């Protein structure tokens, strides 16, 4: 399919197809032709981001308890943090304050950590919040249903044909074309959570990003741990014989597999690199920070592992990583559980804000300058006018409390401490100002990454003042 006019499609050579398959990690037959043209700038932040970390707080997160805290106690029963930097416009909840992760003092005889963590609430001036991101601003009520709410979160619509990350890969296809022509190996975006983020139907199917279960490349064959050189003919001949025996009309399916086997060889060095072994203690400095240091900063939880791996994937050119964090469907005992659970979120934020500026980026500046971190969830939560429901938890329905996803953003492209879009009234969470759709926000992230506009959700404008400026 030629998306740039009527030029005839170019037939790519076998090697080219292999390489392209490698970078898309999806269907290998890739009949797209990219004809450079001036991209239509969507905002002043267009192309300001080289890497995106998108974190989902799974199960529906009660946003005012963290990122829109300056509201009535029926929405944020935990209150506001103290000691927030001056000039911060958004309501910083008490749940972002302090935490055991800040108490990591060096043992006797050890040096103090080179990169120190600060409490997340003290970093609020680095973070900007959109308090009222909405699935459908024109709808009469919120979508508080797990299935459809999550589907909107992952694909923009109920029954959406493409996950957000599939759109990102589609929007960046020209970048991969260029890398291919330059003979470079560039990793694609990775999904380390719900595979719906990597959904790709119809025209989107060639751009599905890989879904990495377990956030690990440990299962890949490391260089030196695979079959010996003399046996390579065994592998290739076994496959070739199988392929050649098949009915001619069936060989195409097998061909696709054989091509990925060839391409896998090109990636084996990356997949088996020490950099990606984020669970192993190593003092080797990669982008200015060692894996051991990252482990100290982020901890050893599943999501911290994903984040540490994300930073290493960025080293190899990956533009975006998505991960699921926690489980916030606290219909019961939210009061007791959420404060502890929030420590993990606070630590992620704190560690990212600490480490990104300490990591020199190959393109100049630091990873902070080139990275955007966004946090979302499929919907927010409600206690129906009370601080908690009868089980000391919260639910999700069609009201404003469920409706507004108060999404935080930080990174070099975001001027911190602000509110973007509509704020909310304290007493009823009524929106005051312009409410942006979730799809608009996703378009903004894609715009920041420099995606081609044809990957965007049509009809949802980019948020004008989130990035850049």
């Amino acid at each position, binding site marked *: 399919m030629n998306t740039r006019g009527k030029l005839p499609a170019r037939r790519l050579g076998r090697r080219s197809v292999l390489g392209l*398959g490698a970078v898309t*990690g*999806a*269907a*290998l037959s890739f009949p797209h032709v990219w004809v450079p043209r001036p991209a239509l700038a969507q905002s002043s932040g267009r192309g300001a981001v080289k890497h995106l970390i998108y974190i989902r707080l799974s*199960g529906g997160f009660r946003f005012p308890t963290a990122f829109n805290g300056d509201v009535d106690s029926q929405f944020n029963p935990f209150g506001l943090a103290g000691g927030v930097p001056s000039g911060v416009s958004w309501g910083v909840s008490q749940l972002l304050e302090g935490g055991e992760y800040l108490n990591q003092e060096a043992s006797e005889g050890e040096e103090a950590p080179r990169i120190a963590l600060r409490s997340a609430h003290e970093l609020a001036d680095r973070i900007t919040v959109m308090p009222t991101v909405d699935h459908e601003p024109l709808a009469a009520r919120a979508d*508080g*249903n*797990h*299935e*459809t709410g*999550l*589907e909107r979160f*992952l694909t923009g619509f109920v029954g959406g044909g493409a*996950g957000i990350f599939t759109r990102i890969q589609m929007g960046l296809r020209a970048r991969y074309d260029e890398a291919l022509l330059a003979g470079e190996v560039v990793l694609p975006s990775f999904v380390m959570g719900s*595979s719906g983020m990597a*959904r790709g139907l119809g025209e989107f199917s060639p751009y599905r990003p*890989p*879904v990495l*279960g*377990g956030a*690990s490349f440990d*299962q*890949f*064959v490391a260089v*030196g741990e*695979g*079959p*010996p050189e*003399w*046996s390579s*003919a*065994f*592998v290739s001949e*076994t*496959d070739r*014989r*199988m*392929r*050649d*025996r098949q*009915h*001619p*009309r*069936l060989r195409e*399916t*097998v061909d696709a*597999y*054989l091509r*990925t*086997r060839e391409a*896998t060889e090109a*990636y084996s060095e990356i997949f088996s690199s020490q950099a990606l072994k984020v669970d192993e203690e190593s003092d080797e400095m990669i982008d200015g920070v060692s894996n051991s240091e990252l482990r100290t900063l982020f901890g050893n939880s599943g999501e911290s592992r994903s984040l540490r791996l994300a930073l290493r994937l960025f080293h190899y050119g990956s533009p975006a990583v998505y991960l699921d964090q926690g*489980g916030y*469907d606290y*219909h*019961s005992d939210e009061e007791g559980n959420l404060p502890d659970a929030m420590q993990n979120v606070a630590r992620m934020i704190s560690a990212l804000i600490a480490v990104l500026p300490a990591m020199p980026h190959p393109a100049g500046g630091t990873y902070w300058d080139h990275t955007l971190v966004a946090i979302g969830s499929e919907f927010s939560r409600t206690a*129906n006018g009370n601080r908690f429901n*009868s*089980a000391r938890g919260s639910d999700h329905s069609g009201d404003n409390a469920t409706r507004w996803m108060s999404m935080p953003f930080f990174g070099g492209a975001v001027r911190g401490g602000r509110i973007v879009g509509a704020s909310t009234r304290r007493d009823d969470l009524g929106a005051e100002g312009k409410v942006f759709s979730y799809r608009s926000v996703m378009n903004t992230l894609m715009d920041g990454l420099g995606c081609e506009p044809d990957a965007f959700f049509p009809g949802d404008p980019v948020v004008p003042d989130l990035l850049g400026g």
Partner: protein
Amino acid sequence: MMPSSKRGTRWAGHRANVRRTLALSMLSAVLLPACGEEESGFDASNPTAGPGSLVGRDSPLNTSFAGGPSGDTAARAVDDPDWQVCDAECQAYCAAQNFPNPVDEALCPALWGAGFDTRPFVETETCRRLYGDLLGRFPTHAEVLSDCAEQDLGAVALRLIQSDDFVLLGRRRWADILSYNNVAVNLERIYDMDGLAKKLFEGRVRYDEFVEVVSAHPVLVRRFDNAGDRVGALFDVFVGRPPFDNERADIARLYHLWFNGYYDHPNLGIRLPDSYIEHRCTKQEENGRELPSDELGRVDENTAGACTSVLWGYNRVVLEPDYRSLDNLTWVGNLTKQEWQLLQTPGRIIGKWPEVWEEAANDVLELYLGYDVGHSVPYVTQLLVEYVLEHGGDIRAAHYAVVTSQAYRQTTTCDDSTCDPDSKPPRWTYGALRQADPELWVDSLRHLMDRGTQHCEHRIPAPRQLLESSVVGYDVVNASMWRIGDDDQVDMRYANLLKTLGGCPDNEVSGRFKAVSILNTATQEGFANSLCNPALVQGEGVDASLLLPSGVTPRSEISPELAARILDHQVGTFFSRAPVPEEVTMAETGATACVPKPCTAESFGRVMCYALASSAEMLFY
């Protein structure tokens, strides 16, 4: 049992009703031992509760199926074959064949009668496919020779269909279709639905009975927000198309009562999402309007139309509240069999539709053939539906008919001298080559390499919260197919491998997928490498004895003859067949090329193992 969502001012006038129901609900624990099953009879090893347990027979509808494999059929001599044209001669030719298999009979006018032929039947290949599809793992060559080859293929298929493994595959398939997710739906309902699917694949419920129960099962309705969406889901699952506007509007009235609420589970100690019945279309005190007590809660003829379908007869779904209801809501755990039957009206309506049966038949055809033959040759669908109905609505009959058909049994192979690469014959003239599901690929290798059986628990795709909820929650997970490690956490290594490959879905939004991608291939190679250990890393890989023929010691020096024996053993293990001459030559050459010298049986066998286990022949079948 209290729904979390209060209805605000709308319910302000219901105090009398609430007082009455509160008082009566205190009696319900005493009066409803049969309905309030959870509190008294929670079984952590099988926490099932729901309408699925109310249906089904003790013994299967059929213990065998008519027909079975047809004999080899020759193509009619035709000058210019066209599968879309079957003239009188063609019709007569097919009528004279007297096919015992309905798929063969229905395909004849577009196949043999039209002048085309199928590919030959290669016994070992068909046996491998049968085991893969019906057992969920590939057999060894020894298994093929002892249990399948030179036997009545119909009897083999029947034996496999009657196995527990086949039933488990069917249960898992419905878990995928209905997107089981214990975060979104009370796990007791999921267990109940799974029990119903088990009965379906054991032949203990008719397909239309199954449709009926699923149509009003919390596993289906609790995942959707409104009545219209529930109709959409019903059609998507059973009709294979979205509902037309009039269908959606009409059947939505039969879903008018469903309410998504929550249930504080007394044993698990957590609040679970569950379904409630809101007693709509009944007389309520609203806006200060008072009603005599004998009218309160009775059917309101003025609004009952909102709960009444009229497109397929007059069907009304209204439940009057009684002592079990609170805030005009009744928890589904308290419904009686009769009430469930009333709620199942949508399924009873569509269960009579031919297109529902056709959709089921087409699903089975596509499952085993890998392509949609029913759309190209609708006669296949028609005869398959008739065949299922002749077997009392036992959907297993369709599975039996398809896997014993020639379209399924024929080989996928054909060299260029026989099959012209430039010709485009109809899809049913050559075999069904499909990519193995992640579970099939991984489980086969684990089985063949003696690594034991492991499963993802499709009924609890999100076990963590349950595991941490309470002792009873821990017991539920512990009694499930998940494995809990020494650290008291679910061992997710097997699940993570499958998830990377597209299996073991969490069903939050996306489900199972099959993909050929760099990541998948690298993962598969990594898994094969971990089993075979071709680099001879100390302490890694399976025991060498598994890779070598009996009597061969790992330290034996390799020779061309020994290499051929090892090849024979491993091709039998992995590919369920004997080696072809080309492979023997490869092995003998490899024995000479193998370094460092002297090369041993183990070092050679581990390399061979990797080549075969990671090969395309292991992935496509």
